[in-house]
């Protein structure tokens, strides 16, 4: 199998007629970890949601391909089955649906009818991954995200990623609200998945997470697009000096998209 590739070209996205993304270009290959950093309100999370097909966001221009196929033509579930995964910042709580029933449905949706995972194998895999993430076994039978703390929800998102083994994972502020121990655990989960078979986009405000997941590329996001790209050293400089020098260098006064969410 050839290397997975996700290619975003001039992506423009609006919400309720307000343009948020103003031409995003990014190419991610299997095995690469890209960090997208930037202050609040610059459109980072919009990029994540729009790629997954969030119903509120409208793509007004641009192309996205996943392994050569047109991602934007696909329904949300087709995007997932094509290999895209989004670890959400605010995952829904779904009453009455247990975590394990949900995950098994998701795995079987990908495997297709007649090729369902056996219950025993599923339980074994789930136990193993929950162990990596230091999750109590009761999470398997609890209702999906219902009553989970912020940190538990994040771990649960990573658990889903580990179980579904996507080709591209977008982690949308997976570090927010996590203490340092939880952060290390989540990072360990991501690192365990690291392979030429998977590309990762990490969206974050802070460099902190990148101490535990080493990125190959770092991009600075402002005004709804990538304004600067570099290697891991860029993240370190942002951590030490903040974003002001980037704004100065590029002559940006207001880095936001002028729309506080």
């Amino acid at each position, binding site marked *: 199998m050839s290397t997975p590739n996700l290619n975003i070209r001039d992506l423009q996205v609006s919400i309720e007629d307000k343009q948020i993304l103003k031409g995003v270009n990014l190419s991610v290959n299997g095995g690469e970890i890209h960090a997208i950093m930037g202050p609040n309100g610059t459109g980072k999370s919009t990029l994540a949601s729009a790629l997954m097909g969030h119903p509120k966001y409208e793509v007004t221009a641009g192309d996205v391909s996943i392994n050569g196929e047109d991602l934007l033509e696909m329904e949300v579930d087709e995007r*997932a089955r094509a290999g895209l995964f*989004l670890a959400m910042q605010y*995952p829904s709580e*779904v009453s009455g649906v247990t975590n394990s029933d949900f995950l098994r449905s998701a795995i079987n949706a990908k495997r297709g009818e007649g090729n369902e995972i056996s219950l025993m194998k599923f339980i074994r895999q789930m136990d193993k991954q929950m162990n990596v993430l230091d999750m109590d076994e009761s999470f398997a039978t609890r209702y999906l995200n219902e009553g989970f703390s912020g940190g538990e929800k994040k771990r649960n998102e990573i658990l889903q990623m580990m179980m579904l083994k996507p080709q591209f994972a977008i982690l949308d502020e997976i570090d927010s609200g996590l203490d340092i121990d939880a952060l290390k655990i989540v990072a360990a989960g991501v690192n365990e998945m690291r392979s030429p078979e998977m590309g990762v986009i990490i969206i974050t405000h802070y460099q902190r997470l990148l101490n535990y997941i080493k990125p190959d590329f770092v991009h600075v996001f402002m005004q709804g697009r990538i304004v600067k790209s570099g290697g891991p050293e860029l993240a370190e400089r942002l951590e030490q000096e903040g974003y002001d020098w980037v704004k100065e260098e590029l002559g940006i006064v207001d880095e936001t998209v002028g729309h506080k969410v």
Partner: protein
Amino acid sequence: MSVWSREQITQLSLAQHEPKWALEKRLEAFDAIDSLPLPKLEKTNLDRWNFSSFQLQKANTTYQQIDQLPNEISRLLLDENSNVLIQKNDSVVYQTENTLEQGVIFTSLASAFQQHETLLKKYLYGQDVSHRVAAIHQAFVHGGAFIYVPRNVTLKLPLQTIFWLDGKEAAMFPHVLIVAEDNSKVEIVANFLSTSSEAAISNSVVQAYVGQGANVQVATVSQFPHSVVDVMERFATVGQDGNMEWIVADLSDGRIISKSTTHLKENGGHVDVKSVAFGAGEMRSNITAEVFHEGTHTTSDIQARSVMKDKATSILNSITKIEKGASKSDGQQTGKVLMLDPEARGDANPILLIDENDVTAGHAASVGRIDPLTLFYLMSRGISKNEASKLIIRGFLDTIISDIPSAALRASIHETIEGKFTS
């Protein structure tokens, strides 16, 4: 009710060899039919509902063994060791005779009139006949079951009754009477269904007396087709520290009046009402749970969920009344309606009536559609829109269905809902 005469009512009573007082109760109710008003239901107009045009069909058969029963009936059976009584139209067509715990009575109402008249006289027809539909029930009572559990006796297995309507314009008026003496424990499952798509009326009553410290759980599952007007009234009277649990599954496709009324008469009584409904087609339903707190330290919890698809309508009423003097009581209620299609309708009416200061109470009600963000979340894991909707709906109802102790009953309710979802 001009097509029916006092003479016919008398014949019904004689055919069951009922005592005179029972006949008098019937005639009293029969005479009141035309003068009594229809029940007053919130936001449901009953003017065009058929309560009185029907045929009393004969069963014309009995079954010796389970495997002779049609699949629609045998699939409902909970457990091969459970005792079950099956009534088709006017009579019992199948009854198991497994050994029951000491002193327990589980029999048809008709035979109870002969063998347990004293008990029947004490408990049967305990509630007022306040509207026309209740009067029709009492005049035409046909079959039903009598369950009696003596003091300190715990039944290990649930008792099951199946009320089965068959034939054009067929009607049935079953009455289930449950008496659980002090510190006894019993679970009862009552299924109501029709094997004919032209049946007309099921007008049933379930009446439970819960003694001091007794535990009674009654699950009623109704699955009638579009043609049927399905009326079920449930009454419970709960003694000191007694515990009543109603599980109500309204899965009929026609017109439904489903009402549970519980009186917590003595101190420390508790009731749970867990109600689910799934409506498709042009189903119209009015589902009410009503609790009266009369003793101190009484507690109640009403949990009602209803899913409406196509053009179905559901009105959910939850009424908690805490009487003066019922101090330290707690009444909670939640009513939620989920509408799947643009023409589906629903309403949740939470009502708390509190005449005592020293109590706690709470309610939550919601009427809505599937949250598009929840759908997005599930679909983002590769689950199709259809499957994701099913998971959400199943989950919405499962917060209640998962409390049903019998796995067989849970499975049968799931299967019915699944069938409606895909129809």
